[in-house]
């Protein structure tokens, strides 16, 4: 459906995107993951034809973006970052304008607009001006503009930024539902979001693709060694580190802490991700040691991301710290946005009530 071949976007000496290659198959939900400035939005903008690549080729639905931009654009529904909307239009007018811009035939337009409004849950606010809507509704309006006319491909740039947790869940569900009939590309710097929604993940960093795989595979490959945490009651004769002689797959056993009841916690590092919990259990039983708890440490997409970024030669500890710092800043920003949004919602609610009152008095006068 989408082929990106050797694409580079350069601004002077700076590479926003450097020689990237990937393919998105029909019906897939693919997520771009990366820090701010990793090249996610630039890549998306190049696919939509908003920005021209410096070199390389992008083919969408069999058409070259450079040679047949109209054909390509007709297949894409795009939701830009920051949900730009026309403040002087109502929700319905905005979606109608998007339908008009997408050259949806006049006969089908009314139905297409209603369908987009319904599937994004905007029926109640369709006659409200977009400027009085809350952030969550604005995201929905922007999404309605993208899906109107049922385009084959949906490109969503940071669709959940600035939303409160409830709205984030709603938007994610919405995206998942679109994924059933569309090819969806979305970008995010929130790892959990990508792993929940996407079938494939493209990790970008400094304008380059670092990895392309399923979230599960990325989580698995983030660490070759499996870590098992074991809490055990030892005897005078037998200590847990002694099982290393019986089980060859164990690479290392390190003591963590002693619990209040006298049991001890160990970290067992196993080679090549093998699951040897059964062997540990039987070996301990033979040596009269009682296992109180044994837990395989789950690796996350976050581990994969940090590992991939950490593993890159040009990265140093300073930059890793920067990632963590940015994450913290992002969380603070989101918290701030949520507060801001709560205020805006209250204001919008007031405006809505005022409008309703006005309508009622008008109705009364009539």
């Amino acid at each position, binding site marked *: 459906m989408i082929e990106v071949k050797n694409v580079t976007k350069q*601004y002077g000496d700076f590479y926003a995107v450097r020689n990237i290659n990937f393919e998105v198959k029909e019906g897939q939900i693919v997520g771009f993951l990366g820090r701010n400035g990793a090249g996610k939005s630039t890549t998306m*903008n190049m696919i*939509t*034809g*908003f*920005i*021209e690549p410096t070199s390389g080729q992008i083919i969408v639905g069999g058409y070259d973006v450079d040679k047949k931009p*109209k054909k390509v*654009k*007709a297949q*894409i529904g*795009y939701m*830009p*970052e*920051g949900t*730009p*909307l*026309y*403040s*002087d*239009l109502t929700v319905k*007018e905005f979606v109608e*304008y*998007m339908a*008009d*811009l*997408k*050259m949806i035939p006049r006969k089908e337009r009314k139905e297409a607009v209603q369908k987009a409004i319904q599937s994004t849950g905007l029926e109640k606010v369709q006659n409200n001006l977009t400027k009085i809507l809350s952030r969550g509704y604005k995201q929905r309006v922007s999404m309605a*503009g993208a899906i109107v006319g049922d385009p084959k491909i949906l490109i969503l740039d940071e669709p959940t930024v600035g939303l409160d947790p409830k709205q984030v869940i709603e938007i994610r569900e919405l995206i998942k539902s679109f994924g059933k009939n569309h090819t969806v590309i979305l970008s995010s710097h929130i790892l959990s979001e990508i792993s929940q929604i996407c079938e494939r993940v493209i990790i970008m960093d400094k304008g380059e693709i670092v990895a392309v795989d399923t979230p599960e595979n990325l989580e698995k490959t983030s660490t070759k060694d499996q870590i098992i945490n074991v809490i055990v009651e030892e005897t005078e004769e037998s200590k847990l580190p002694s099982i290393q002689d019986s089980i060859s797959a164990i690479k290392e056993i390190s003591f963590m802490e002693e619990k209040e009841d006298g049991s001890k916690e160990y970290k067992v590092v196993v080679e090549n991700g093998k699951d040897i919990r059964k062997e540990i259990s039987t070996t301990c039983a033979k040596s009269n040691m009682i296992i109180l708890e044994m837990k395989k440490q789950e690796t996350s997409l976050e581990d994969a991301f940090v590992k991939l970024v950490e593993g890159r030669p040009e990265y140093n500890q300073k930059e890793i710290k920067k990632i963590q710092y940015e994450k913290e800043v992002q969380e603070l920003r989101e918290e701030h946005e949520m507060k801001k949004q709560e205020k805006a919602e209250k204001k919008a609610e007031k405006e809505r009530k005022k409008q309703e009152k006005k309508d009622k008095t008008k109705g009364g006068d009539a």
Partner: protein
Amino acid sequence: MFAVMKKELKSYLFSSTGYVFIGIFLLLFSVFFYISIFSYQSMNFEYLFYNGATILTFVAPVLTMGMFASERKSGTEQLILTSPRSITSVVLGKLLAAGIILVITEILTLMYFVILKCFGDPSLKVALSTLFGFFLLSVAYLAFGMFASSITESQIVAYFLTAGAFLLMWFLPDINSNLQLFSLISMFEKFPEGLITISEVVTFVSFAVLFILLTIVVLQRRKSVK
């Protein structure tokens, strides 16, 4: 083209921009009308448009300053430029909408002609020639204003760039008589005399087409430098 035109027209008429343009233009036009009748005892409808051209210098940028600058600033240009509509149709759609507001304003100025007709005998032919010339001048101004709006994301910069360029055109003939060729105002002055010459019409149209093309080039080029 009509999709963009419809939306722009709606924006002009549902926001203050369209009314500010029409309102300020007609208000100042009325002031000049009053002065012309009571101070100069003049019954010439056409001469009012010399003053109209002055007013246009300051109010035409109001219509054009937001055309692309505001879209760029708010990010909505992404919605337009990622749609299957061509840049040319977007540019023409916006210009057409501003042109319609302008035609509405011109039609409204006909009330002054009607008033004069009640008390005198102004020439309809000369009036129409003046209105035609004023329309050409306005379209040329709008095309330049649109171009100014496409090169910046600040509406204020776009306004001053447009008004500044128009003012400069006023003074070009004073700087050097040869520069009169580049002064649209000097060219417009023939229309209130009832003269419609091909050279003036071609100059106005060429000026407008040049800046329409430049706007298209600017928007097209931004794809590669953005």
